[in-house]
């Protein structure tokens, strides 16, 4: 490609899916949700991601459909802006600037030019609901200044605000108060519940609110698990409420069905409860959803529900309470103690998942493959329980073996350790428990590593522990008269002056084992388990240890807690070089000599990529993350990139992923996630986004007839006729919504022209390509103009499939211009 690349960071898979309620789109079978910086569009039928809306450089607070036009979308950012855009094409119509940070935004069909915004006033915990008049203007960037106050003393979460009965009133909850503002009467009623001070154990705090779509009824969720249904609240005195109580813990979210006949609630029990007719006796459950329900949303057609969970999961549920699809992101519920690993077989990222599980996460498809239950015990979700933790895991022998370590520590002296060894079963395509070792060490295990060298026919595993020993485990024959079997036994126990073993690693060829004992690195011969030599730099405990690869295999690298990176030469047994660097993560690329190190400073984390043989880094990227980076891993690329610039060559074969403390997974890439979507899902979008309108039928028939004609023509005249889908003008015409298209008379000639055969295709092909690339560059430089992405994409596929272009360049440009036309007439509608 072109030599000028810029490496960008992208959130990859690790973005939170459960940040806000998902929004359904009723016309097509899509639903939308916020995923980090993007808004993702998934098909409800196939759960496949079909579209990613980009163009947000920071947190999307919430998004809504333009009330009267469902092809337009509002998205809102924490930092003072509102965008109105056509989400299918990604065209931004308007920016609205507000002088406040937006915590949540609401739109209503009956308040056409108003949006309701939660902003906070000077004090950090004082929030207000205000209505903002969006001024009519043709310009793209508009400053919205007309704020009018609606309610104060509210919560910042959008779950605590609900609009009821077609915008008759708005209900807001906070602490022990329910406030209702009536738009017509312009009055506020406030209802208070007794606070916990008065009553013992009464946790009456409001947690969420929902309004009945048809009736004057407000449902509120409470901290003690009660749901109250308020009625008659337009009279401050005659108000009445009824209680529904099933949840034993806080009600996280509430939603009414479209007709209002049933109420959905969810909480930490991970059970979706449907209250039919709002009666206590008539309730249905959908249990075992896996994790705390954070949000519930209902599709406008009423046939689907959607719950988002604390483990970064979205479940689509049918009206009859059957889960139909699960969209699982990277599970973020637990702390990551295993680190990031790559399963050699599936090339999936492996790390802690659900409690007691290892998750296998496909980076290519940005979705979870499966969870492997390691602890194999029922997880009891309650505060204050000491759970068994999965602390270490390692893959060995090309993914044939998996070693896991789990621990449970109730008191200082009562440590319970267990090591499990899992063998990959080709028949079942999964890991099967082979050996379980109780208390493999007396104290915490600090490192587990397999010897991955090819010459070792016998799988070998080394564990290092705080008890001062490292143990070598080998696979032995465990057959008896009943069956042939293999099992793991301890082969050697090593120690060094009763120091705690902190790290261990094998050299690339497996001949040497390096074990660090606090400040000292010991080198052992893996044949005889003899201590060969020791290195000691007196620069603090060794935090990371690794051997160099390939041409640098004679080097051993160690990073200490005092911020020194040392490189020893194993041939001379001397320190080659050392550098002062406070290293948090050190990760060797298994397929090159490169080693990535992430250092932590007060301002942020910096990335250094270097080869052990030279102390000068290949590549430095400052400030890759504001927070602490906890883990990193190199992943081999499917298709090697060809960066020519020396600084990026380390990214050619591998990709570096890293995980920050807030468990967002980041990577270095030049591609946007939209491009990474597989072509199949793209096609899915094209097909499904065509509504079954009369126009579709006519056009569909027309196309079929044309196809037949083409076939006939092919046979008879042997002239290549392009398919209609492949003509950009037509596909654009079809993919652009009708309301942004120019008049039909204007398009007609272009449309007909595009169906004609052009004769100079071959001669024009080469210069056209160049043109397009130039344009692409200009697109890249203009960061805000994301709408060209799509055409760019079609171009790519065109290039790949080598299809003859029928439209001249100038014509195409002209068509594109129509799309850039001023759309101010839209606001007049």
């Amino acid at each position, binding site marked *: 490609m072109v030599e000028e690349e810029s490496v960008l960071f992208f959130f990859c898979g690790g973005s939170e899916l459960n940040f806000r309620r998902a929004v359904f789109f009723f016309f097509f079978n899509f639903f939308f949700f916020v995923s980090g910086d993007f808004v993702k569009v998934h098909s409800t039928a196939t759960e496949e991601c079909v579209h990613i809306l980009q163009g947000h450089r920071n947190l999307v607070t919430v998004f809504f459909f333009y009330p009267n036009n469902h092809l337009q979308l509002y998205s809102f950012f924490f930092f003072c802006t509102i965008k109105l855009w056509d989400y299918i094409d990604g065209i931004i119509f308007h920016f609205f600037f507000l002088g406040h940070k937006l915590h949540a935004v609401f739109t209503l069909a009956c308040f056409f030019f108003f949006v309701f915004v939660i902003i906070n006033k000077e004090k950090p915990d004082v929030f207000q609901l205000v209505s903002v008049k969006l001024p009519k203007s043709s310009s793209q960037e508009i400053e919205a200044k007309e704020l009018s106050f609606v309610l104060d003393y509210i919560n910042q979460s959008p779950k605590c605000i609900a609009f009821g*009965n077609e915008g*008759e009133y708005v209900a807001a909850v906070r602490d022990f108060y329910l406030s209702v503002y*009536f738009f017509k009467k312009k009055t506020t009623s406030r209802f208070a519940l007794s606070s916990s001070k008065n009553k013992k154990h009464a946790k009456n705090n409001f947690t969420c609110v929902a309004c009945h779509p*048809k*009736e*004057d009824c407000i449902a509120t969720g409470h901290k003690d698990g009660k749901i109250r*249904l308020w*009625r*008659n609240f*337009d009279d401050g*005195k*005659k*108000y*009445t*409420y*009824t*209680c529904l109580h099933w949840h*034993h813990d806080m009600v996280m979210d509430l939603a009414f069905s479209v007709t209002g006949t049933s109420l959905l609630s969810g909480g930490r029990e991970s059970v979706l409860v449907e209250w039919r*007719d709002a*009666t*206590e*006796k*008539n309730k249905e459950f959908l249990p075992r959803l896996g994790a705390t329900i954070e949000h519930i949303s209902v599709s406008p057609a009423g046939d689907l529900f959607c719950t988002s969970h604390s483990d970064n999961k979205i479940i689509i549920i049918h009206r009859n309470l059957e889960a139909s699809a699960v969209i699982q992101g990277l599970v973020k519920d637990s702390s990551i103690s295993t680190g990031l690993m790559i399963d050699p077989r599936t090339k999936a990222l492996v790390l802690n998942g659900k409690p007691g599980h290892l998750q296998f996460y496909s980076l290519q498809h940005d979705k979870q493959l499966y969870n492997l239950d390691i602890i194999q015990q029922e997880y009891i979700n309650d505060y204050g329980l000491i759970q068994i933790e999965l602390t270490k895991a390692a893959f060995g022998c090309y993914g044939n073996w998996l070693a896991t370590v789990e621990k449970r520590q109730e008191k200082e002296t009562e440590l319970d350790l267990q090591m499990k060894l899992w063998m990959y079963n080709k028949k079942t395509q999964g890991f099967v428990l082979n050996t379980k070792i109780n208390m493999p060490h007396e104290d915490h295990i600090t490192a587990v590593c397999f010897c991955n060298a090819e010459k070792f026919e016998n799988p070998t595993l080394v564990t290092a522990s705080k008890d001062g020993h490292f143990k070598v485990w080998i696979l032995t024959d465990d057959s008896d008269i009943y069956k042939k079997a293999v099992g793991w036994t301890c082969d050697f126990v090593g120690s060094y002056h009763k120091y705690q073993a902190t790290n261990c690693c094998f050299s690339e060829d497996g001949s040497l084992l390096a074990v660090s004992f606090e400040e000292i690195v010991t080198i052992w011969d893996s044949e005889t388990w003899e201590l060969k030599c020791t290195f000691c730099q007196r620069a603090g405990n060794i935090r990371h240890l690794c051997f160099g690869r390939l041409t640098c295999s004679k080097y051993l690298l160690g990073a200490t807690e005092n911020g020194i990176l040392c490189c020893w030469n194993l041939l001379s047994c001397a320190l080659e070089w050392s550098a002062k660097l406070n290293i948090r993560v050190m990760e060797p690329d298994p397929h090159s000599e490169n080693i990535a190190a992430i250092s932590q400073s007060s301002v942020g984390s910096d990335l250094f990529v270097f080869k052990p043989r030279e102390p000068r880094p290949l590549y430095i990227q400052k400030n890759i993350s504001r927070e602490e980076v906890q883990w990193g891993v190199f992943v081999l690329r499917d298709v090697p990139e060809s960066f020519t610039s020396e600084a990026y060559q380390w990214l050619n074969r591998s990709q570096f992923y890293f995980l920050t403390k807030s468990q967002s997974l980041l990577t270095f890439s030049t591609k946007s996630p939209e491009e990474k979507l597989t072509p199949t899902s793209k096609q899915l979008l094209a097909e499904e986004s065509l509504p079954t309108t009369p126009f579709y039928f006519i056009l569909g028939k027309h196309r079929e007839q044309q196809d037949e004609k083409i076939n006939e023509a092919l046979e008879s005249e042997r002239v290549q006729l392009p398919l209609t889908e492949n003509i950009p003008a037509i596909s654009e015409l079809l993919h652009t919504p009708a309301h942004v298209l120019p008049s039909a008379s204007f398009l007609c000639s272009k449309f007909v022209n595009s169906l004609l055969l052009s004769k100079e295709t071959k001669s024009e092909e080469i210069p056209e390509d160049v043109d397009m690339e130039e344009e692409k560059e200009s697109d890249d430089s203009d960061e805000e103009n994301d709408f060209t992405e799509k055409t760019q994409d079609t171009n790519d596929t065109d290039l790949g499939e080598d299809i003859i272009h029928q439209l001249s360049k100038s014509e195409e440009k002209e068509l594109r211009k129509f799309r850039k036309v001023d759309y101010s007439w839209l606001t007049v509608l």
Partner: protein
Amino acid sequence: MGEFKVHRVRFFNYVPSGIRCVAYNNQSNRLAVSRTDGTVEIYNLSANYFQEKFFPGHESRATEALCWAKGQRLFSAGLNGEIIEYDLQALNIKYAVDAFGGPIWSMAISPHGSQLLVGCEDGSLKLFQITLDKIQFERNFDRQKSRILSLSWHPSGTHVAAGSIDYISVFDVKSGSAVHKMLVDRQYMSVSKRKCIIWGVAFLSDGTVISVDSAGKVQFWDSATGTLVKNHLIANADVQSIAVSDQEDSFVVGTAEGTVFHFQLVSVTSNSSEKQWVRTKPFQHHTHDVRAVAHSPTALISGGTDTHLVIRPLMEKVEVKNYDAALRKITFPHRRLISCSKKRQLLLFQFAHHLELWRLGSTVATGKNGDTLPLSKDADHLLHLKTKGPENIICSCISPCGSWIAYSTTSRFFLYRLNYEHDNISLQRVSKMPAFLRSALQILFSEDSTKLFVASNQGSLHVIRLLEGSFKHLHTFQPQSGTVESMCLLAVSPDGNWLAASGTSAGVHVYNIKHLKLHCTVPSYNFPVTALAIAPNTNNLVIAHSDQQVFEYSIPDKQYTEWSRTIQKQGFHYLWLQRDTPITHISFHPKRPMHILLHDAYMFCIIDKSLPLPNDKTLLYNPLPPTNESDVIRRRTAHAFKISKIYKPLLFMDLLDERTLVAVERPLDDIIAQLPPPIKKKKFGT
């Protein structure tokens, strides 16, 4: 306050009987309550929920329905097949009419108050005409297959809804024929139960029939088409009772699980006229079946097997948040069931069908204040006296000397003479009671046990001289001309010269025993008298009323005493007025004439007339000031009301001698332990 040795008596094994029916009368704001033993009690809701009247029960007369008719007439019907009208003045049964349809399960008075309809065991509905002094059978409605368990008139009086087993019928009153028959689903939590019993129906003016049944459902039916409109499943057990407010904007149902549910008619949206019934609040004030509910304009009233009468005010209907807005739970009768012989330290306990005589235990030990002294001699159960016949005991009394016991049922008066020979007791009935001594509402012995005073239900007071083993009728005070009100409270002065008697509403009459004539009448007061007593020496009459006011009236001077005037001028402490049980007994300390001892169910109080009265700023329920405080502070904080709340629920407290008190408690837990087990409910976390 002084130190006392207290006999803490807990062996009074009294269990009130369960509430079966509740009927609320809007005009007089009175509540009629019938219990499973046939007792009917009248509560005056305006007078601090005081139980002003009661009609003793009868073994065979289990009431199943209770109704108020026009002109404050009270009717009941029961399983003996009789319709009974009560005389609320004379406190007796006016007449009983047999409906000839087997046991009567339900009864309803027409909205105009002129007709009475009963539903019988044999499935017949019988219409009676209410005449001025009787009821007259009019005709039968179409006979149904099974018993009619519930009845409700349409407010226009044209139709009647009748709940039976498995179906509800709607009758046209004019023709007496069934217009609709609405079958009720037998399914109960998807299990087919054998029968679905319609425990209650309510007919609303818009034609809606609300039914409650044994499958736990509250159902709304359209009586015009006979179709089910809405179904609320609210309980896993029977829903047993229903009551609708007069405005028809709310109703209340009671379930066998002890929960009372409130339903309200709520507009669907604020700007539409469409309204719907919504279940709003559940109230769990009962542990057992809620057999009866009533809906007063401002409160929900419920009663059931657990014997409590619960009055739950509706907050939105209460104008000011005063003490009427608080929940009331009435468990114990507002009259005395215990009498005491001070001389022999005997207690006489009155039960529905027997009397028990106990001798108090004694101790020789001494101790500090607050110590529990070990008994050297246990309390003795001396006597168990069963009544003859099915009637309940109305009242009983033991003479102060302990040698006489008198009790009365509705039809007979009994007097016994007790002889003590060492440890043995012999009982001898005094025979040949005069004909006029048939039924007594209150019996009292004079302090020297030589005279017996009997308040009969005709309004007359009989004075009888007691001799060894015989008696002599001295005099009968006839009621004031024109009134037929019965006297229910009596008090005699310790010197035996004065007798005070009070009815339910009119003032207290004071009679001179020596001259056998009416001495004076204490001016009548708005609230009924709950307790009466005459102080020794001064002959001051102390009167407690149901609004918690206490008056002191000097009989010789025929006027209120100075202290009484002072306290009326200053007013009682607000906390004193907010107590929710009436004072049931007043007594005096023989050596301290300034002290008045009185108690209600939850406190015991000594009023020291010599001390200043408390105002609203002072602490009413002050704990005893520690003795090490200086005298000045003690004097400053002391006020006339010394209140002790150690003993509760307190049924009786009296002074045995100068230093000894007897307190009879009846812990609620002991009552609950004797009730049938409630429906078992799964409770989360247990």
